[in-house]
């Protein structure tokens, strides 16, 4: 599933969107997603407004449309699921091109597709305009448990190292004529997974020793301060507030 999602999405740049403090952007993205989910599904206009809002953010952050579209591939499994709903859904049925489809099913499919798409595009824009390191600092700033942030920091640092090891093991397998055809090859792959675990674990132990050697006592030294001004918060709030307003208006009109 979702092949190639080990490439981080970050797109270096120096735009107003890039410059916003990460904690503001994190809150904005989550707030936007909540607003979208809370929007009633028959409010076509509201979703169009949300899409326009995202387009504006993408333009301000100079995120090319192509990149966003390529990244939306991640949604594909759920598009397939959504497409199936009208066929298996309950309720009143309508004839579309000779197919009997469930009307509530169509609504549900539309609901999932629209909201999932807006949500995934918001996440893509967040990830494309926020350096991974900054995202972690933002999370720390938002008072996420520091241990959790540390774990994520180490994971991101060593992800490429571990994936590289996995890739080398795959090349080693394949260069000796190994092809994973069916379940009979599973033991070989599982041995690779086992070896990968041992290497990861042992590296964890060595990293811990290296940290101890430089005075680690269980707390990461806090050397960063990432303040966000009121103005920056206000700028970041524009997206979720507009989306929320749209949702509220749509609800009251509905």
């Amino acid at each position, binding site marked *: 599933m979702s092949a190639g999602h080990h490439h981080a999405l970050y797109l270096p740049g120096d735009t107003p969107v890039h410059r916003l403090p990460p904690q503001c952007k994190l809150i904005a993205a989550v707030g936007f997603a909540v607003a979208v989910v809370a929007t009633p599904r*028959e409010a076509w206009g509201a979703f169009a407004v949300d899409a326009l809002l995202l387009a504006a953010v993408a333009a301000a952050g100079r995120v090319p449309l192509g990149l966003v579209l390529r990244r939306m591939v991640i949604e594909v499994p759920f598009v397939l699921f959504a497409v199936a709903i009208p066929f298996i859904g*309950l309720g009143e049925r309508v004839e579309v091109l000779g197919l009997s489809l469930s009307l509530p099913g169509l609504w549900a499919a539309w609901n999932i597709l629209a909201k999932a798409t807006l*949500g995934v595009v918001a*996440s893509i824009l*967040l990830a494309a305009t926020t350096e991974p390191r900054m995202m972690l600092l933002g999370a720390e700033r938002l008072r996420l448990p520091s*241990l959790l942030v540390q774990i*994520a920091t180490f*994971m991101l640092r060593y*992800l490429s190292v571990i994936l590289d090891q996995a890739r080398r093991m795959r090349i080693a397998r394949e260069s000796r004529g190994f092809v994973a055809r069916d379940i009979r090859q599973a033991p070989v792959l599982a041995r690779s997974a086992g070896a990968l675990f041992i290497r990861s674990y042992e590296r964890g132990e060595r990293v811990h020793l290296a*940290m101890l050697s430089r005075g680690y006592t269980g707390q990461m030294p806090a050397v960063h301060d990432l303040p966000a001004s009121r103005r920056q918060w206000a700028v970041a709030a524009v997206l979720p507030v507009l989306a929320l307003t749209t949702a509220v208006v749509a609800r009251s009109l509905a």
Partner: protein
Amino acid sequence: MHVPDGFFDVPVSAGAGVVAAAGVAVCLRRARRELDDRTAPMAGLVAAFIFAVQMLNFPVAAGTSGHLLGGALAAVLVGPATAVLCVAVVLLVQGFFFADGGLTALGVNISLMAIVTAVVGWTVFRLVSRTAPRSRTAVVVGSFLAALVSVPAAALAFTVLFWLGGTAPIEVSSVAAAMGGVHVLIGLGEGLITALTVSSVLAVRPDLVYGARGLRAPLVLRTADGEIPVDNPAPSPAPKLGIRPVLVGGGLVALLLAGVVSFYASSAPDGLNKVAADKGFNANEKPHDLENGPLAGYGVSGVENERLSGGLAGIAGVGITVLAGGAIFFTVRRRRRDEAAA
């Protein structure tokens, strides 16, 4: 399968978020006691491993392939608390850094793929290793069953959430059947790979397998009276800690949140109901299971005020979710206490 935005309504998403947060909070404390100051680097590296192993595609049958969820595998290898943290971090990173899985669905994803798989997997594993004699075979068989059960368990939890606040009009029984059937098959694959992986680690570094700590050979003391075997104690298990305050606190926040949110969220009738009302076929609509549920239409029957009843339904929904999560934790905890007493 990462659930995207829009799959569940706001109260269920928020409720699952609270369950996920409470579960992760409990595991943060437990893991810290299991690994002390090694927690951050070790869990970080194991999380990277889980991420990598999820990308390893295993051939299932003619042309199709699947990949590991890894919750049960992680639980057997590094213990349930660390496993929950690792998978949760993987999901958070996938959500925020790779746009995989909806941001509002993070709670659902963490609850299902981190907490349910690891806790259920670990519970099954413990059951097997307590009933079977201590041996490598028992550990491997235990891992197989743990992973096999963990996948349909997550699917079942998904179905429950779907029944509480899914947005698609599919009969809950057909969701259960479809999810259950498919996931028993997926679980077989997961179980096979998990067991083989655990077995290959056991062969090289048995000391790294958390679930095999009981397998240490006894030490031998050489004294004047000959050789005396003594116990080789496993590293002391994590001390008991109060999950109760975390769960109670989290639960209260969840209820408050869901109540407030759905008070507003349900002020307008949900789309499906609205269409039905507009078209005037409410009367002859064949009621389906979803609408017969106690929370049908997210309004509590018998409460006239629409907003109020929506809020109550939200509270009830979260309450059920929290109770389900809590029940799992308390079962595990009681089991541990029994073990300690035994």
